[in-house]
């Protein structure tokens, strides 16, 4: 199966055509102008991941910005966001404090990205 995607490694934005076999492995990549395109297609098509950022509203009403410490599977983004939205936290928090451990069973923690008094 041929899958099409846009490389984001540089502003060139090469249109990539990647051949994927039945096991879901990337067999070949075309359309790229450099090796980064090939690597990008392989990761993006086998296990695309994203860092998720959003806010948690503290009990005092103040929004606290948070992120997943590492990238999580792309198809888990909404699940992660919903889990983050459902927690209630108390202030103060420090930048880097863990807000949720192992969010949505991704093995990744959600941490605060700002110290809020």
């Amino acid at each position, binding site marked *: 199966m041929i899958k099409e995607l846009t490389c984001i490694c540089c502003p*060139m934005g090469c249109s990539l055509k990647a051949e994927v076999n039945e096991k879901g492995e990337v067999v070949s990549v075309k359309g790229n102008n450099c090796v980064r395109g090939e690597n990008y297609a392989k990761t993006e098509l086998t296990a695309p991941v*994203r*860092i998720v950022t959003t806010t948690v509203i503290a009990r005092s009403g103040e*929004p606290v910005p948070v992120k997943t410490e590492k990238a999580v599977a792309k198809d888990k983004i909404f699940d992660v966001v919903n889990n983050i939205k459902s927690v209630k936290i108390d202030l103060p928090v420090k930048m880097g404090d863990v807000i949720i451990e192992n969010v949505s069973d991704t093995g990744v923690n959600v941490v605060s*990205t700002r110290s809020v008094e």
Partner: protein
Amino acid sequence: MNDHSLIIIGGGPAGMAAALAAKKAGIDDLLILERDSRLGGILNQCIHNGFGLHTFKEELTGPEYAERYANMIKQEQIPYELNTMVLSVECLKDSNKKAITVISSKRGVQTIYAKAVVLAMGCRERPRGALNIPGYRPQGVYTAGTAQKLINLEGANIGKEVVILGSGDIGLIMARRMTLEGAHVAAVAELMPYSSGLKRNIVQCLDDYNIPLLLSHTVVDIKGKEKLEGVYIAKVDKNLQPIEETKEYYPCDTLLLSCGLIPENELSVDGGVEIDPRTNGAYVDESLETSVEGVFSCGNVLHVHDLVDFVSEESARAGESAARYILNGKKPIKETIEIKTGNGVRYTVPYKINVDSADELTHIRFRVSGVYKNTSIVIKSGEKELMRKKSMILVPSEMVDLVLKKSKLEEADEAITIFIEEASQ
């Protein structure tokens, strides 16, 4: 107490980097004035990641980048005042000192003095009125940055059905942000045939969520008297004029505008700083000094950046230059080379270089006026070629940073011209 070596106007990424560099260069008596209630400026509301790859070699969110810098400011014991706004900057004729009039609840309205000033006030968004979109003026029309502030800093829930005009980075980021907040983003319309945002933002903020990017489209009418009910979007022709027959209705309760940023230079202009109409920022030389002696400019108030890392680097140079000015006085100006723009180059920062006082390496930053593939960036002085750099792609959304050696500058006998040499030529 009210007489300082250096005053830095703005405590965002530019102001903080300038302050740290000036302190490192030996200036102890400096003061940062910040109008907001915390340091960090616009970074505080940019809760997404993608900051700091150059500066910290890791990917941070805006608040993290801001807090790291704020921590350094505190560590270096650099004084700063929050909720303090500068009302005017004036260069005193007799002493060459700068008189800075500030207002805060603590100080009241007061004039303080400094040998040198760094302007680091950032930029503002182009509002709807300046875009001349016809229609009603209902609730629900926000600039993307205002919406970002409302959601990320005020915890507001502003809309459910969204259209975005302009594919600037803040618009793209807000498309994703609104989606994650439970809204449906119907489309992002962009007047130009290319996006003004970064490619990775198009993929990660639009494509990931199946949000269509309508290139060569614009909003031609806004409906809803008190509250936004919908907008009409039409395709535009080659002259960017809407084609009436292509008009389509998009019901929505929120319209976000991400249609350009304008350096906020009203203060600079009042202080006599000359403005480059190409950037809406100050004319500066290689030391980032403006047309007013002892007044330096950096960051988004100088020219709009796409990477905060570049802002920090540039602002550190402004801080160093200001320190040098304070410690050594006015630099002797012998030979000045003007930088001219040729094919495809919209502007350059700086616009002139004092060769003698230039550092070993001079940064020249510019933006191109269109999309250029497989071209060369060429610097010439008369017929003499000083530099040539191949480039696979140049786009208006990404600032170009060229570094020119002093030895090359010394080869120039007359003004230098920077241009894009296209393959077919």
